């Protein structure tokens, strides 16, 4: 059974997280890096209504000049998720055989903290990704590297992990991402470059 998102189509990345985590920045950096390589890209972020603390998603489609902004269901070669519960919202977009990289951060909504609502176990996400025939890669936030005594930016760290551990590395080069980071972060360049390298070199 051929699924939507076969190799003739663009390489699709579905990004999910919570507002404030920097998931959209990952999308921006990858777009810029891809553009530096001269490859067409469409990056479609959906910020929703909250400045912070609300569901955020973004869709990246790489390799086609004119492409519909939304990734079809079962169309994403890669899902990058930065929050456990929100990661479930991306599962239906994962292409069978695609990579599902979860930064297993738990940002519990108030009702969950008060015991008024459930919060999914990691096992639930794993099961769902396996049902969707995806490759599940989970990284604990406790593995985040420190830079000069402070935690490195976790979104860029995750991007580094994705470059080495997922099919993203075949689409965009490490050096293009470095270049994009340098252009994006005129200040804090070194801590972001560090985070990218540390994520890339992380042993899982």
């Amino acid at each position, binding site marked *: *059974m051929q699924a*939507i998102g076969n190799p003739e189509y663009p390489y699709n990345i579905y990004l999910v997280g919570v507002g404030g985590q920097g998931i959209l920045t990952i999308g921006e950096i990858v777009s810029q890096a891809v553009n530096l390589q001269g490859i067409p*890209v469409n990056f479609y972020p959906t910020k929703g209504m909250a400045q912070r603390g609300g569901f955020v998603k973004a869709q990246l489609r790489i390799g086609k000049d004119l492409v519909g902004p939304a*990734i079809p269901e079962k169309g994403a070669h890669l899902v990058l998720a930065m929050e456990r519960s929100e990661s479930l919202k991306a599962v*239906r977009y994962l292409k069978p055989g695609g990579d599902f990289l979860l930064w297993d951060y738990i940002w519990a909504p*108030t009702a969950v903290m008060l015991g008024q609502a459930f919060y999914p176990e990691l096992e639930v996400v794993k099961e769902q990704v396996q049902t969707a025939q995806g490759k599940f890669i989970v990284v604990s936030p406790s593995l985040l590297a420190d830079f000069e005594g402070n935690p490195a930016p976790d979104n860029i760290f995750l991007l580094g992990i994705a470059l080495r551990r997922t099919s993203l590395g075949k689409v965009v080069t490490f050096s293009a991402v470095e270049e994009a980071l340098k252009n994006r972060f005129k200040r804090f360049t070194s801590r972001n470059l560090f985070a990218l390298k540390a994520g890339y070199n992380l042993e899982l």
Partner: protein
Amino acid sequence: MSKEIVTGNEALALGALRAGAKVITGYPGTPSSEAIGFLLSHPELWKEKGVHVEWSTNEKVAFEIAAGAAWAGQRALVTMKMSGLNVAFDSVISIAYSGINGGLVIYVADDPGVSAGMAEQDTRGFAFMSDLPMLEACSVKEAYLLVPKAFELSEKTKSPVFLRLTTAVSQSHAPVELELPYYLPLEREILLERDIQKYTKAGALICMAQHRDLIQRLEKSKELVREMRLNELSLSKKRGKLGILASGVSYSYLEEGLLLASQFGLDPEEVSILKVVSVNPFPEEEAKLLLENSELILVLEELEPYMEKNLILLAHKLGLRRKIVGKLDGTLERIGDYSVREVLFGISAALGLKIPPELFYGIQAEKLAAPRPITVCAGCPHRGTFMAINNGIRKAGFKKDQVMVTGDIGCTILGMNPPFNTVWNEVSMGASIGIAQGYVHAGINSPVIATIGDSTFFHAGIPPLINAIQYQVPLTLIVMDNGWTAMTGMQFNPGTSEKFLPQGSRRVDLEKLIPGLGVENFWVVDPYDYRKMSEIILKALKLEGVKVILARRECAIQAMRRGERTGKVQVNPEKCTLCKSCLTITGCPALSIGEKAMEIDQTLCNGCGLCLFTCGYKALEREEA
């Protein structure tokens, strides 16, 4: 040329600069805000060229400013979201009748799929209602290229022209070859023309003559649109079987959909495609060729079946019997945004292809996700207002479900959600104050409260307040003044501190404006001061007539961005009993439940201290900054 990644909104703004627009106005509204937002953060692109860019008080004002400039012979752009067009439309119709002298492009962003909350309004209907041309772009790149064409069409027809984008295009980022220089100045003579036949609506003769001219201008635009080759028709290589008419973002999914459908029996060489860019006037000549060349036609357009109806009408006029697949036969939905799924579904319905359903649908893992209702940010001054309203209602001897609290557009609506559950409804800009008066006149015998933000109040809240004052309607209005148009991404507004307004601007102070209207019971309170706020609300609920409370404190996000905190709050673990009152009442995102005591995320907390009022054990301690 410079190939840069820009958003659809930025492309629109850059296109207007390249087209030599002299005046660019708008009012913020998702998904359109970044057009003006981009220009205001890049004054180097236009400021020294004598271009005027502004956030106006509302969309009607923004439109009128742009229209005035276009009457005076210049090119002008006005930007808004679909709801804003409703506000501006009174003037749009009138200017449509008069016509213009320069170029006037009205950029409207529709939101199929509702990314931002509000109606799924299809503004193409307004183009038909006003007999104005409307162009629609299918991609970021096309948005950039279409702006100069829209201006050209506008100038040649002497008519305002709509340019419509939908969220998926306006919010997308994509590489665009930008022409240099970014701003291409135009030599336009300033026109001061006195002609009451054209510029007034005094009398039937004038109005009906203008109506005739308006219809003629739209007729003329038909020829121009053809000359400019705005719409693209590609007829099938083989005998035509399927014709597809696609407009807007639906077109961008077409290639992918066709390739997929070809795996299930579609022969792409039997397909003809008409891409509609000029939504109004409808490209009849090209549509005629499509009809003649195809056995059946699929129409792909989000929201309302406008193109489909046009096509059916045309087929009828031409005496062509064709099966037309779209929304009117029940194949496709009028609700939501489209993707490749609708393309594939439409093709399979038209041709009777068997496409396995599992191709369309993934598993529904999202049902297992925790609900995440959005709430106000840590340190948000609105939190204090919602808490105080709830407290004031209780102290006045009412239950929460006895006191109507009307809501309005913007961050202030977040009071509808837990833990506050304060606000009952949301209609349109400024509506909280009118709706509240309706409840009073309906004979409700408990107090009525209206809540509104500062920008929303400036936009459309002042006339309904004047109405309430004139008729001395007993209600309590709380203007939640955080100094910014926050929900749409922190734009300044007339009440923003002069420190953050463009040079030479003057702040309009609500503290002077509201009493100036004749409000006798008026208080200015800091919503961080929960006790005072509750006390004033209680007092207001007991008084007759119109009471207004100006709950004033700057947006916490903006203050935090400048590194300003009001203090530091810490938990004393010795005293904390983990009763969770602080979290239950405030719902503050900076609070979380630790193992032995509550914890505060110091990167989020700005020290507002509202949680202190909820703690019965004095376990929360605040230091003034």
